[in-house]
């Protein structure tokens, strides 16, 4: 293995490859910041360019773009509450409130350091465990995935503050209902389309997230403009752009980062799970382990609440390379695009890849770490300038947010219907937000809806309609037991508080 690592280091540290990581991180960050253009689009745009290079160089470029785009997505989540990719939705829960309190620079710095730490730790895990982890990822079956989705949805407990549990559950159901629109994945039977061709492919994630987060946030700001309780705090540009993280905040991050990186990496290793579930789970778990005082800060600009999903989503990005490189199974849509590129290079991924093509396997792992360092060097000095976006007067910022939201949908579908649908969902979401119905559970459920149905279908078909699959396998039973424990713990804590 040492020999492989050395080969990887030698390949990754060539001038050309370092340059590729830099270019990739830079372009990835820019593209990731634009709503609607996530890492998948960014990598797809790079494919034609990469074919001119050696396979290792091409993949290093794509890995750089991947990390850059994830970081860029976090930036728009924190500053505009407009997460362009599912993996950065959880970042906005505490990142956006922190930015609204005039600490945009600090929020971006915490996100940058957490991403860096998450990526670094996961690169280390990958270094030592990649070959053996592929076996773990193969041991997951449909019932385990279904149980994992249920566990992911119980993370909604994290968002249901006092007395909001039922509202959160209603939003979960609404999210799953929205996800059920369109063609059934197996039989191709259309559901809830009302004979409208535009709904046949279902509702896109970007549309729902832009409507419920960015657009509804913009409408809420205008709606509450004269509300004395929501008067904006005046902050100076220096305070807005300050990236200083104090000792207390650093201590919080030191505790959050290791546990979130483990969750992120392990979830990332599972094919199909990816950064979204990882970030939501890390957020939910973090809320469960912090003190009661810190718990109250969640959703209002908590350092732990921002650091956890940021660490986890980057760790999951690295983890998703395990099934791709060792099994040829892409862990996410983005790695699926990268797998296509890998096959285009004539490289066959599999358990023997790190023996047959050690320069590719290890140089990607090594370049991930180098990519993390470069991403940090590139982005930290830019944060004070990026944060100033929030200093733009609301009269300009709100139309610009609406413009980015509509553009994100327009470039995806070139369809008027999607724009109307987005406006409709945004209006409903704005109304629901007025009455404290939380949007994050809706988004999580919408993202997991398709996967959840797919895994439930397989499980029920394999068990011939019996629900025994829930406790037949030890792994499934363990995940469900954890879910039950979390729910029981929450109920116990609520009753304890009341008494």
């Amino acid at each position: 293995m040492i020999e492989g690592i050395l080969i990887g280091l030698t390949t990754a540290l060539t001038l050309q490859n370092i340059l590729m990581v830099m270019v990739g991180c830079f372009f990835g960050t820019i593209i990731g910041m634009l709503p609607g253009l996530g890492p998948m689009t960014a990598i797809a745009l790079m494919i034609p360019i990469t074919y001119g290079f050696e396979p290792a160089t091409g993949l290093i470029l794509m890995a750089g773009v991947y990390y850059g785009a994830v970081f860029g997505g976090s930036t728009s989540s924190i500053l505009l509450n407009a997460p362009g990719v599912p993996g950065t939705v959880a970042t906005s829960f505490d990142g956006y409130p922190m930015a609204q309190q005039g600490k945009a620079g600090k929020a971006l710095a915490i996100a940058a350091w957490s991403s860096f730490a998450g990526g670094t730790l996961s690169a280390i895990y990958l270094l030592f465990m990649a070959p053996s982890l592929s076996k773990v990822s193969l041991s997951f079956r449909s019932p385990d995935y279904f149980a994992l989705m249920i566990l992911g949805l119980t993370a909604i407990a994290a968002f249901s503050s006092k007395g909001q549990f039922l509202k959160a559950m209603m939003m979960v159901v609404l999210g799953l209902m929205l996800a059920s629109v369109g063609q059934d994945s197996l039989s191709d039977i259309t559901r809830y389309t009302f004979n409208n061709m535009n709904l046949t492919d279902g509702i896109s994630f970007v549309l729902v997230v832009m409507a419920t987060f960015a657009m509804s946030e913009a409408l809420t700001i205008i709606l509450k403009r004269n509300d004395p309780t929501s008067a904006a705090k005046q902050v100076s540009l220096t305070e807005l752009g300050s990236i200083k993280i104090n000792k207390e905040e650093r201590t919080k991050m030191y505790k959050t980062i290791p546990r979130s990186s483990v969750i992120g990496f392990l979830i990332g290793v599972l094919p199909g799970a990816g950064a979204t579930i990882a970030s939501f789970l890390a957020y939910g778990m973090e809320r469960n382990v912090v003190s009661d005082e810190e718990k109250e800060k969640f959703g209002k600009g908590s350092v732990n609440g921002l650091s956890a999903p940021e660490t986890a989503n980057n760790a999951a990005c690295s983890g998703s390379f395990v099934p791709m490189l060792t099994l040829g199974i892409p862990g996410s849509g983005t790695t699926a695009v990268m797998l296509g590129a890998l096959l285009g290079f004539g490289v066959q991924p599999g358990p023997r890849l790190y023996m047959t093509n050690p320069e590719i396997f290890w140089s990607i792992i090594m370049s991930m770490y180098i990519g993390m360092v470069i991403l940090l060097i590139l982005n930290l000095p830019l944060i004070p300038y990026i944060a100033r976006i929030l200093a733009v007067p609301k009269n300009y910022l709100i139309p610009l947010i609406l413009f980015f939201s509509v553009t994100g949908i327009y470039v995806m579908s070139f369809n008027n219907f999607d724009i109307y649908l987005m406006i409709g969902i945004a209006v409903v979401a704005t109304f629901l937000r007025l009455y404290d119905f939380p949007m994050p559970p809706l988004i999580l459920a919408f993202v997991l809806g398709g996967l959840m149905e797919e895994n439930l279908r397989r499980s029920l078909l394999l068990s011939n309609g019996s629900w025994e699959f829930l406790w037949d396998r030890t792994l499934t039973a363990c995940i469900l037991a954890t879910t039950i424990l979390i729910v029981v713990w929450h109920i116990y804590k609520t009753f304890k508080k009341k008494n």
Partner: protein
Amino acid sequence: MNINTTKIISLLFFVFSAFYLYLAYQIQVFTFDENAPFNARTFPIYLGYAGLFFSGLKLILPDPNTIKVEHKNLEYKKTGILILIAIIYGATILKVGYFLTTSLFLFASYYFLGERRWILMFLLSFPFVAAFMYLLHGILDIYLRDPFLQSIGIMG
């Protein structure tokens, strides 16, 4: 009588879930799939019942955290105008083209939100959209349909 709006929303969600459930039972499945342990209507049926269950609970159980919204403080007029402008923007973007509609959308939005610095309003609409279009279309090679620019020969 003081009506709790959260309860009204829950009631609406209850009705919505009932309608969703009704439609779930109407989903046409293949004959051979009719009695299968799982078909296209199974998951929606579960969801319909889950919606009825949670919204029903919300309706029945007492609500200790009643949210009171001061409607007189809310800017319904400006929000409504902004939504209307966005709808017009959505309706014209394909026919007129990205550049003109987006620029006009931005300009009109700034105006209705109370902005009157004309030069800044212009700079942050027409030239801004042109620069953004150049980034997407010119540099990133992302296609943007624009019949207006095509008709005047600026875009190929």
